[in-house]
Every structure is written in C-alpha cells, then in structure tokens.
C-alpha cells in the first residue's frame, strides 16, 4: 500500500477540522457560546452533529472487526447503538431539553437540589468520558501504524493534540460545524468504498462463506463464546439504556431551541444512524470471506479495499477510509473532550473560560496516558464497557428523575454509587487483567444485566425509605420538565450555573 495517499488523507482531515474549528473562533466569545453555541444550531445540523459525534472508532472500525471475529451475535452492537436513541427519544429527550441543563450534573442538581448528587454525577461523567476516549486514541495509533508504519503512540498524540487545540480555541460552536461535517464524511468514507468492494466481489463470482462459517459464524448464539445468551442480553441492555447516559450526547440536546425540536432532532438522528449502521455488517461479512484470519481485526475496514481491489484505486479507497476513521477519532474525541472539560471546569476548577481551557488539557492527557500504557483491547469492547457504566448510573437517574416524583437525593446518590461503582469495578478488572473465562468472565465483560437492575432497585428502595428528602421543588420541576413551551406557566427560576 502506498503510504503517501494515507498520509495525505490524514493531513487533509486534520487540516479541515482545524480550519472549520478556526472559522467558528470568531463566533464564540462568551462562556455561554463555548458551552452551547448559544442555541442557534438548526435541527439538521444538530442531528448531523449528534451523528458525527456519536459514530466513534468503535462504530467505524470496531463493529466490522467484531463481526468478522464473532459473527452474527455482534450484529446486536450496532442495533443497540441505534435503538438506544429510540429509548432516549421516548423517555428522556424532550424533558431533558426542557430541564435547561447543559450537563448531566446540571440535571442532577436541578432535579434533586443536592450538591452531593451533583458531585457524584460529575465524577461519573469524567470516568465515562475517559473510558470512552481511551480506545479512540488507541485506535488512532493502530490506524496510523497500519497506514504509514508510524509507532503506535503517534496517532493517539496527534488526535489528542488536534482535539485539545480545537476545543480550546472554538468551544462548542465550532465543534457543531466540525461534527456535522464529520458525519457526512464518515458515511461517504464507508459507503463509497463498499460500492466498489461489492462490485469487485461480484466480479470475483460472488464467493460465499465457507461451509463451516455458514453453519456456525453466520448464525446467532452458535459462536465459541461461553454464556452467549447472557452476553447477548447484557449487551442489549447496556447499549439500549447506556446511550442516554453518555455525557457528549446530552450536551447536544441543549442546542435545540425547545423540547419539541429535541424530539424531532432525535428522530433525524435515528435515521442518520440507521443508514450508517447498515454498512459495517457488510464489511464484516466480506472480511470473513476474504481475510478470515486477519491479525488486528479492528483494521478490517482499512484492509479490504487494498486486498480486494488493489492498485491505484485500492490505494485511493484505503485513503478515503483512513480519512473517515480519523474523522471518527476527531469527532468523538472532540465531543467527549468538550463534555469532560465542561464538567472539570465547572465542578472541579473555578469555572469560566480559562478554567475550561485548563480542563480541556486535563480531559485529553489522562486518557492519552491510559491509552499508551494499557493493553489494547478490541475498541468496540472498551466502548461497550463505557455504555455499561452509563446504563448503570445515569439511565436510572434520568428515567426516575424525569418520571418519578418520589425520587430523593439519598436514593439517587445510593443508586449512582451502587450501579456506577459495580460497573466501574467490573470495567477496571476487565481492562487490567481480562478477558476472563467462565461465568465470572461473562459477568465482568458484560456487567449491565446485573448492575442496571441493581442501580434501579437501590434508587427506588432508598428513595422510598427516605421520603423526607424528596426535593421541595419537585412539583415545579415536573412542570418545567413536562409542559410544552407554548404554555405560559411558572417553571421556576433554576438556571445552570455558567452563562
């Protein structure tokens, strides 16, 4: 493969991201701009931006790799990552927008009127963000090594640096444009090569799977994984419920003008994601036919164009896929960095634009250090763990907070600590020494089926035991969360602290 094309692709994406970021620089002047782009972003832009931010290295590279490795059971991963938005739409989207919260800690504070819950939520946001950022940096290293032969750490450092500069200079406004651009780039970068790949596959006489694969790999629940049914259900639970608890997704909802727009934006997001997720499964299947024994399965999307098409066309298509992959690293990392930096800046440092910049540096350096020191696990698996933590902590907080008046600050605190703590424990053990075998291994690798019910149960039981701690303003908060904006009613005077 020619290195020049790959390097050119990476440079182009990076320069484009920086330029578009700089374009937004003139527009962002106040703290409010930095956080939410002053709520002037239109719905299609906003939906593209959510899509662009959400489709990470795990979606672009990881799913195809896992499907190549494990077959039909892994099809649930993209299904869950899309379906999570349906759950988010019906349970969370409009009330969350109406709450006026910029971040999950804001929501916790507004609803439960408790600084303790806010602080625990802040810590969880930072942990989930770092857990999500780490595999992005690792994949960037892997891709850059595959394409150019550079040492593994270079890719991660490159992405971290670009993201930090971009976030620090432009804040949210520029990020919205960058993100929206990245969605369409990623879709093109995966769809166009696939058209050529399928043409090459037809010209090759449309070879099918080997008889062994057709009887095993292609069928659900027939892989070599132990406790396949448990893992499948746990994966479904984590992905469907975890989406609403991802810190970088929530910030986007604030950029909708009202609750109704938030719903409509989510609907557009579902369509955009559905279109994108049709593609990785085909890459996985083609990979199984042509390169079943690929070393480093996360690179299957990069390898196929060169393998099937070859020559100049193959090189160009590989460059296009590389550009898409870098777009994925940059967009997801930017979104996460904005959220993590926002929370660190507000809740740990003293707030304001300067704190936000310091926080942005902190937000990328910790996961970068983790990425270079930790072992490389499959990217989609690590991201899956981040979903499990989100599903076991923020999902119950949001769902009960929005729909159940009797949630108390003590209940929320206990639930966040129990669910989030258990899930984080499982994650740490898996990353430090996994993967383990047997039932314990399955539980540790896919903790959600256990930790999500625990989190819900603890939150409900402790709330019922502490009725005296129901927040005083809960009735007003319910009015704020649920009444359409067209009605002229008193929604209370709570405002997020920065602006």
């Amino acid at each position, binding site marked *: 493969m020619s290195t020049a094309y790959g390097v050119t692709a990476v440079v182009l994406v990076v320069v484009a991201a920086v330029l578009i970021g700089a374009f937004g620089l003139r527009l962002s002047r106040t703290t409010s701009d930095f956080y939410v782009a002053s709520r002037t972003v239109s719905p299609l832009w906003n939906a593209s931006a959510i899509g662009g931010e959400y489709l990470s290295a795990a979606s672009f590279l990881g799913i195809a790799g896992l499907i190549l490795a494990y077959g039909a059971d892994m099809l*649930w991963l993209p*299904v869950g990552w899309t379906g999570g*938005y*349906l759950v988010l739409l019906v349970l969370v989207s409009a009330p969350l927008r109406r709450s006026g919260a910029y971040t999950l800690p804001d929501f916790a504070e507004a609803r439960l009127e408790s600084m303790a819950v806010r602080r625990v939520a802040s810590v969880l946001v930072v942990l989930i963000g770092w857990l999500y950022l780490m595999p992005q940096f690792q994949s960037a290293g892997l891709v850059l090594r595959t394409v150019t032969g550079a040492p593994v750490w270079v890719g991660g450092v490159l992405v971290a640096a670009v993201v930090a500069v971009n976030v620090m200079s432009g804040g949210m406004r520029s990020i919205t444009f960058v993100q929206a651009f990245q969605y369409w780039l990623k879709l093109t970068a995966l769809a166009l090569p696939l058209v050529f790949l399928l043409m090459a596959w037809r010209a090759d006489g449309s070879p099918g799977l080997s008889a062994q694969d057709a009887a095993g790999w292609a*069928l*659900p629940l027939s892989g070599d994984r132990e406790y396949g049914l448990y893992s499948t259900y746990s994966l479904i639970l984590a992905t469907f419920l975890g989406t609403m608890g991802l810190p970088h997704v929530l910030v986007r909802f604030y950029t909708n003008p009202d609750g109704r727009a938030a719903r409509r934006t989510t609907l557009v997001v579902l369509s955009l994601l559905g279109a994108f997720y049709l593609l990785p499964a085909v890459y996985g299947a083609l990979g199984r036919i042509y390169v079943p024994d690929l070393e480093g399965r996360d690179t299957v999307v990069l390898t196929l164009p060169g393998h099937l098409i070859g020559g100049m066309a193959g090189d160009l298509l590989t460059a296009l896929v590389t550009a898409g992959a870098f777009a994925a690293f940059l967009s997801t990392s930017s979104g996460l960095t904005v959220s993590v930096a926002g929370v660190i800046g507000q809740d740990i440092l003293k707030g304001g634009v300067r704190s936000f910049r310091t926080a942005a540096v902190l937000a990328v350096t910790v996961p970068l250090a983790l990425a270079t020191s930790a072992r490389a696990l499959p990217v989609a698996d690590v991201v899956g763990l981040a979903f499990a933590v989100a599903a076991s902590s923020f999902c119950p907080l949001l769902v009960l907070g929005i729909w159940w008046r009797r949630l108390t600050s003590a209940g929320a605190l206990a639930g966040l600590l129990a669910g989030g703590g258990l899930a984080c424990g499982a994650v740490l053990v898996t990353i430090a020494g996994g993967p383990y075998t047997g039932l314990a291994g399955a539980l540790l690798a896919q903790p959600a089926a256990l930790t999500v019910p625990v989190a819900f149960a603890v939150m409900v039981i402790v709330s019922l035991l502490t009725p005296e701690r129901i927040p005083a303003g809960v009735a007003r908060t319910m009015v704020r969360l*649920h*009444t359409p904006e067209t009605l002229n*009613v008193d929604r209370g005077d709570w405002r997020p602290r920065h602006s």
Partner: protein
Amino acid sequence: MSRERERVRKEIDRFRRDGDRARKENDKPRREVVTSPRTMAARHLRYTASREIDEQTRLGEVYMRSLVRTQFRLAMFVCTVLGCVVGGLPLLFLLVPQLREVQLLGIPLPWVVLAGLIYPAFVLGAWLYVRQAERNERHFAELVDGQ
C-alpha cells in the same frame, strides 16, 4: 386515550366546583363597604388552569399528573413493544433453531432482520411516537388554555 381525557376533565370539573363552593362559603359571612367599583375583580373569580398549576393547587396537580401519566404510558408502550421485539429475537433464535437457517434471497434470516430491517422499523416507531407525543401535548395545551 379519549376516555382518559374524559376522566381527567370530569375530575377537573369536580375540583373546580368544590373550589368555587369553598370560595363562596368563605365570602358569605364577610360584609364590606364598597369604596370603589372593582370591575376587574369579577373576571378573576375563576382561576385559569395555568394559574392553578403555578400556585400548585390540588387542581393544578391533577392537570400535571394527567399530562405526565399520559406521556409516561405512551413511553412505556413504545418501550414494551421494543423490549418484546429486541428481547424476543434472541429467545426466538434459541428456541426455534430452524429460524436461524432460513434464507431470504440467499441471506440468513438473522442478518436480514438485525443488519437491515430493524433500522427502518426503529425510525417508523420513532416517527409514530413523536406524532403521538406532540398530539398529547396539544391536547394538554387545549385543556389548559381553553379554560
């Protein structure tokens, strides 16, 4: 849905009657000298629904609970259907292994469903939900504004 609205309306009417009666009774023993004609006061005898909500009267609570309950039922309905489809598929593939091997146009059925059809189904479900949720909100707004 309409039966639910009917029920809420009745409950609200009952509260309103009770409130009016209570107010009348409170007024009864008092005698005041009218020093200036307060023509504006008469219009506020009946509280508007939004004021009931603002002052968190029991009637205001009924309004709010009806909205939250309606939206929650809709959300639960969608989640139940989603849960049955998504939770049922692995079980179906487990219990009826022949289904795994059915082929549609040369593609195994699980792939047709999980890598294709389920995505448009999500979008359709989401669209139907958004329509109904907005309708619920419109009804609530009519209930509150139309008083």
